[in-house]
Each structure stands twice: as C-alpha cells, then as structure tokens.
C-alpha cells in the first residue's frame, strides 16, 4: 500500500519571534499508509491538534514538508489551489456540531460537496449516501439541525464531512460529550468507513479503550514530538511507558494483568472486550478438561 500521509521533519511554531513564541511541533516525521486506522494519543497540549491541522493545510509547516498523495505542502505553499486537497480530506473537529448552520439538515450536509462543485442529482445522491452512512433517519433531513439531539447533531455534522467523499478522514475526539450509546455508534461508524469504504482514518482520542480496540497503529505525542509509533498491543503491554506519559491503561489490559497476578495466564493479550471474554471462557473450558 502506498503512503496516504507523509510528514517529513515537520516543525510548527506559533507566533514566531514574539515573547509568546510557542513550538507546537518539533521535527515530526510520520508515515500513514492508505487504508490504515491510526490513532494519535497524548496529553492535552502535546501537539495533536496542530499535527492534524497540517493534514489538510489549515496550518503549514514552519519547516519540513507534508505530502498528501502527490501534493507537497511546505511553508511556501500558496493558499490558493488547496481545494482539491481539502476535498480529499474530511476533517471532523471536536464538537463538530458547532459548525452546523444551514436551515435544514439536508442543506447542511450538501454544503461541503456543493462547495467542491457537485450539483443537481449527483448532489442529492451524495447527501443521501452520506445520511445513510451515519444511519440518519430520512425524516430528519428536512428538519432544522438546531432541533436535533446532541447525538443526532454530531451524526449530521459527520455526514456533512462524509458527503465530500474524502479518502482520508481525520477525527479529533469524535466521541467527546456523547453518551455511551452515542460513542459506540460513532466508533462503529468509523470502523465501518475504514473497512468497507477503505477510508484512511486518523483518530485523535483520549479514550485508550477505543484506541486499543479499533486502531492498527498508534502514534504517541508529547511536548510536540512523536515519542512512539507502534502497534496497539506493543504499546498497551508496556505499562511503564503508559504511566510515564500519563496515558490510561485500557480495561482489557488491566483485567489480563490482574488475572496474571492471580496466576491465570491467558494465551494472548486481547484489546477487544469480546475477544477477552472469549479468551477467558476458553481458558476456563481448558482447565475443566485438564481436571
């Protein structure tokens, strides 16, 4: 698979040459393959948000370069002609329901694609497709987005991004402030988009359970630097590392460890709750047989 996103020695400085100068990113190099599900984790202020804003050139690197597909962005890149790039990348910011503005849900979802020149029947189809992806009731399409519930609003906002038909979907804490059901819903949606629509997913999250369960790769950031790039099981078994960077230990890992302390070692570490349950059941069955 080819690279969807390539960061090469990217640094970003806010308000350079003032006393308020702030180095948000320092020498970040990163490769994200197309079709991957990558999670970016780290404390607040570690540079995650700055990093993802480079993916669709909302921010440009102070030094270094970002390559998306065949488009290379450096500090000299002109702000014009960024539209094709922005169309390829769907950005779901924190609390994306804040960006809703149109009179009806339908119009709001259509806003993105129509900005990229989609019209007529094609626009209609696109809106319907996006609404279906997030399982939005068709009755809601004619309603005002401000009359919906929190979870519905968020789905509408995400549909508005998906309607652009992006190749890469970047999400900044998409589940923040939702109830458990809403969270599950959004995460399953993201997994579906990754597996069925083959979208590259970049997820920023503080929920280690979700990161452990869903992602193929994890990038850990601290103080504007990438401190670790690895597979989730590699990261979450290293409890010392997690503690060092104030990262939660996922429940599945905790349970596995508690069991091991009590003398029950499972065959392998499962980061998914269902898998873990199956692992424990198998273990119990085998022990029954042994006796």
């Amino acid at each position, binding site marked *: 698979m080819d690279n969807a996103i390539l960061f090469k020695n990217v640094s970003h400085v806010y308000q350079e040459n003032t006393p308020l100068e702030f180095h948000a990113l320092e020498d970040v190099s990163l490769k994200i393959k197309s079709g991957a599900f990558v999670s970016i984790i780290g404390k607040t202020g570690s540079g995650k948000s700055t990093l993802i804003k480079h993916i669709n050139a909302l921010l440009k690197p102070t030094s270094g370069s970002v390559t998306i597909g065949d488009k290379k962005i450096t500090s000299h890149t002109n702000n014009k002609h960024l539209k094709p790039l922005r169309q390829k990348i769907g950005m779901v910011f924190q609390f994306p329901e804040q960006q809703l503005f149109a009179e009806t849900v339908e119009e709001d979802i259509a806003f993105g694609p129509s*900005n990229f020149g989609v019209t007529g029947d094609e626009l209609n189809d696109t809106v319907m497709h996006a609404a279906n992806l997030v399982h939005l009731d068709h009755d809601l399409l004619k309603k005002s987005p401000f009359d919906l519930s929190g979870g519905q609003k968020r789905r509408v906002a995400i549909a508005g991004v998906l309607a652009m038909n992006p190749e890469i979907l970047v999400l900044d804490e998409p589940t923040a402030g939702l109830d458990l059901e809403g969270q599950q819903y959004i995460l399953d949606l993201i997994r579906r988009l990754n597996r069925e629509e083959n979208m590259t997913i970049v997820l920023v999250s503080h929920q280690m359970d979700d990161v452990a369960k869903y992602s193929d790769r994890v990038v850990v950031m601290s103080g504007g630097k990438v401190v670790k790039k690895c597979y989730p099981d590699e990261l979450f078994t290293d409890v010392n590392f997690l503690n060092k960077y104030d990262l939660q230990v996922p429940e599945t890992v905790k349970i596995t460890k508690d069991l091991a302390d009590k003398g029950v070692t499972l065959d392998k570490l499962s980061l998914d709750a269902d898998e873990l349950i199956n692992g424990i059941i198998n273990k119990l069955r085998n022990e029954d047989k042994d006796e």
Partner: protein
Amino acid sequence: MNNFIFGRYLPGNSLIHKMNPAAKMLIAFAYIIMVFFANNLITYIVMAATVLLFVLLSKCSFGYFIKGLMPMLWVIIFTVMIQVFFGSGGHVYFSWGIVKLTSYGILNAIVLTIRFMLIIAMSTVLTLTTSPLEISQGISALLKPLKRFNFPVETFSLMISISLRFVPTLTDETKLIMDAQRSRGVDFGDGGLIKRVKAFVPLLIPLFVSAFKHADDLSIAMEARGYQTNRERSHFHTFKWKPNDFVCMLLILVMAIVIFIYRS
C-alpha cells in the same frame, strides 16, 4: 490576526504595569485630548518626549510599538492621501481637476500623521501594560461618581468585563469554525464581494448560536452563585492610589500647562 498587537496585553513588572488602571486611563485620555491642542513644533516635541518617557518606563521593546502601528498604517496612509490631494489653501503646487497639491494640504498631512502616531503610541502603552480585567476595573472606578445619578455602575462594569473576558473565547471559536468550514471547501477572502459576504454566513450563524449558548450558561452560573444586579461587589484585586500614580498624573498636568503656554 496573530500580528494584531494593537490592543494586546503583555504581562510585565514595570512601573507602568503596576500603576492604578484608573490613573493610566485618565492619563491616556488627557494625553489624547492634549494631542489636539498641540499645534507647533515645540508642543509636538513636548508631546513626543512625554510619550517616549512612558514607553521607556513600560519596558516594552520598541518592536511592539512599530507592530502596533502596522494595522493602522492603511488608515493613516488613506487620510494622509486625502489631505495631500484634496486639502486647500496656501500655495498651490499642482492642480488637476479637483485634485490639488497645496502647501496647507501637505502641512495638514504631516500634522495628521504625527497626531496619529502619538495617539497610537500612548494607547499602545495603555493596552500593552493593562490587562482587560484591569481596564474594566479602571472604567468602573472612573464611573463611580455617576452612581449619584443612579447610573448602574456595577452592572455596567460587569458588562464590560464579561465582554472583554469572552473576546478570546469567541476568537478561538471563530478560528475553529473557520477551520471546519474551510475543510468543507469554503474560501474566506476569495472571489467577488457577494461571494465573500456569502462565505461568512456559515461562520456567523454558528458563532451567534454559540454566543447565545455562552450567555445562557453564564447567566445560570452567575445566578447559582448568588449574583444580583446593582449590589456593591467586592473585588479580589483592589487597586490603591499610590505615589507613582500621582507623580505620573502630575507629569501629564505639567505637560498640559507647557503646551498651553507654548501653543501658538
């Protein structure tokens, strides 16, 4: 927007920083009025020397004052151009239709530039050394006498401090929503006038919605903490009048007297 130094607070520990905000505002206000009384070389030199003294005392580097001028540069250039080309009186150097280049016009332009620079420099001293919170407390201290005439001073000063308090919040939200809509293909500042105005609808509506929501939340939070209108509130930081304040105000008074003596 990041380069917009004019109106930004720089924390510091200088003599000017420590002054009573009410005194600073009085001084800045008096100074700005005096700028319009100055009308010859000596008086302008006195004015410039005074502001220079305040700049030095504030210990803020000159770069900030230069940067503070930048956003106003176009306003200055525009007004100067109008003065230069449409001013009348005095010796006419050049004339074409209504456009005239006259000695008075040029003189007026120079005077205007100097006045602009002096006013901006002085107000930059004020805004660089006074935090928004201090400014609102300064305003409320200065308005206190109006209480006699049933003017709701407490409410008014709270209003000011709330508005100032929410400027950064709303700025951040504006940036966030702009980023979100940019990601959905909006080009702010591109295309014709109508297209540009239209581009602001997806920015302004969410911003209004969130401003109302903030107002709602804030009023509930204030009520929950027992806020009542027009009751005397105590402040965590209180400002006393210190010798420094009187010295600086005396300085401005002396400057004013000198200007009234030497103005022609």
